[in-house]
């Protein structure tokens, strides 16, 4: 029984590693894009323009208020009707980036708002321009509050990337699904899938926790 299990495991493992690689690629690309977009949106969200800030707020609400699986259906099935035909992989990256950037936007905006107003004033008073104030004085301090939840958002995104299996991206979850149709060992197959996700996500969760502890201790000392 156990030997049979082991041999089956060894047979299917290469497929799973390929799936894992795809999960890492999809998440990695989306991570870079959504971080860049999220920071830009977050900075604009705290900016002086009411209109810009409100529009971004609406975007964030839409992304937060609807399930990711619905979002990915919209990107994959509806955008083509409007003339934007995407393959599964770019569609997955677009959907993941759109959603995660909204969450990161709120994290970044929260971090910026947590910096006392006097810091902006002091920086302005010594003649730094808006961009320098942000880059040299505000963001370095805001990063303290931003970093732990930012890593948390990455974990959420990696987990949400499992949903892109529904439009046919052969990442980890999709591989599990394909396997279970052929080998009816649901428990084993999805335990294995789960373990592979765990291997990526758990260290990141620990990182987020320890960052939070370290940074909050530092701020107590300061």
């Amino acid at each position, binding site marked *: 029984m156990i030997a049979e299990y082991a041999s089956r495991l060894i047979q299917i493992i290469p497929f799973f590693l390929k799936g894992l690689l795809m999960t890492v690629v999809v998440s990695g690309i989306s991570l870079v894009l959504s971080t860049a977009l999220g920071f830009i949106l977050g900075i604009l969200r705290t900016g002086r323009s009411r209109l810009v800030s409100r529009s971004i707020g609406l975007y964030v609400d839409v992304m937060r208020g609807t399930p990711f699986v619905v979002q990915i259906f919209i990107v994959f099935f509806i955008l083509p009707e409007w003339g934007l035909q995407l393959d599964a992989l770019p569609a997955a990256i677009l959907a993941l980036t759109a959603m995660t950037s909204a969450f990161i936007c709120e994290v970044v905006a929260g971090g910026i708002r947590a910096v*006392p107003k*006097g810091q902006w*004033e*002091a920086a302005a008073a010594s003649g*730094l321009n808006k961009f320098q104030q942000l880059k040299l004085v505000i963001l370095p*301090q805001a990063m303290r509050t931003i970093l732990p939840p930012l890593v948390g958002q990455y974990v959420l995104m990696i987990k949400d990337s499992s949903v892109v299996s529904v439009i046919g991206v052969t990442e980890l979850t999709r591989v599990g699904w394909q396997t279970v149709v052929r080998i009816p060992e649901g428990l084993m197959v999805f335990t294995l899938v789960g373990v592979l996700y765990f291997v990526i996500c758990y260290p990141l969760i620990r990182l987020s926790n320890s960052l939070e502890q370290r940074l909050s201790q530092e701020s107590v000392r300061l």
Partner: protein
Amino acid sequence: MIEFKNVNKWFGKLHVLRDINLEVPAGEVLVICGPSGSGKSTLIRCINRLEKFQKGELYVDGQPLHDHSINLTKLRADIGFVFQQFHLYPHMTALQNVTLAPINVRKMNRDEAEELGRRMLARVGLSDKADAYPAQLSGGQQQRVAIARGLAMSPKIMLFDEPTSALDPEMIGEVLDVMIQLAEEGMTMCVVTHEMGFARQVAHRVIFMDEGQLVETGKPDAFFDNPETERAAQFISKILTH
């Protein structure tokens, strides 16, 4: 150097500055006092446009501040500002606090800026604290770093917004000493403060504000000993008994 002409400012409906007319020539040390909420902080915050005003004209070093097209960063670079709550950058050392603007605004190279920074820290008596973070410094030391930060831009004017009122009593002296020394070197200074000793020793002029108006102007000794207006007299008796 600084000239207010009929400056008016409102916060919503609240009229915080009413027809301010005031001229501060180069080299003058001006002390501004008055009860809290009288508009004195708002007044000096207008000088580097941390606050906007709605009506009137304000010239600083020949530049019209009521004109919104002027180069604000350039203007602010030439004015030092010291806050009540210091507002040092907590993520930088004392030296980095002082050199930040010279490097990024004056485009000095790092060595030059650090040399300048150390000189400024020495000037406020903190040569040995260059590598300390704000959290490791006492309130008085932090405020002196903040003064050095302002001086590093070789400003034409230094503005002080209640620089000693957030400090423990035993630390007030060390900050005032630095300010007195600055005044004696001929710096143009506007100081919001209730420190009478400082005013009597170095101020050329004291102005008294109440409810957004400039109520009284005078030489420090005359003002504190024989105020002309009832409101000023009341205020002085309060800070004396205090």
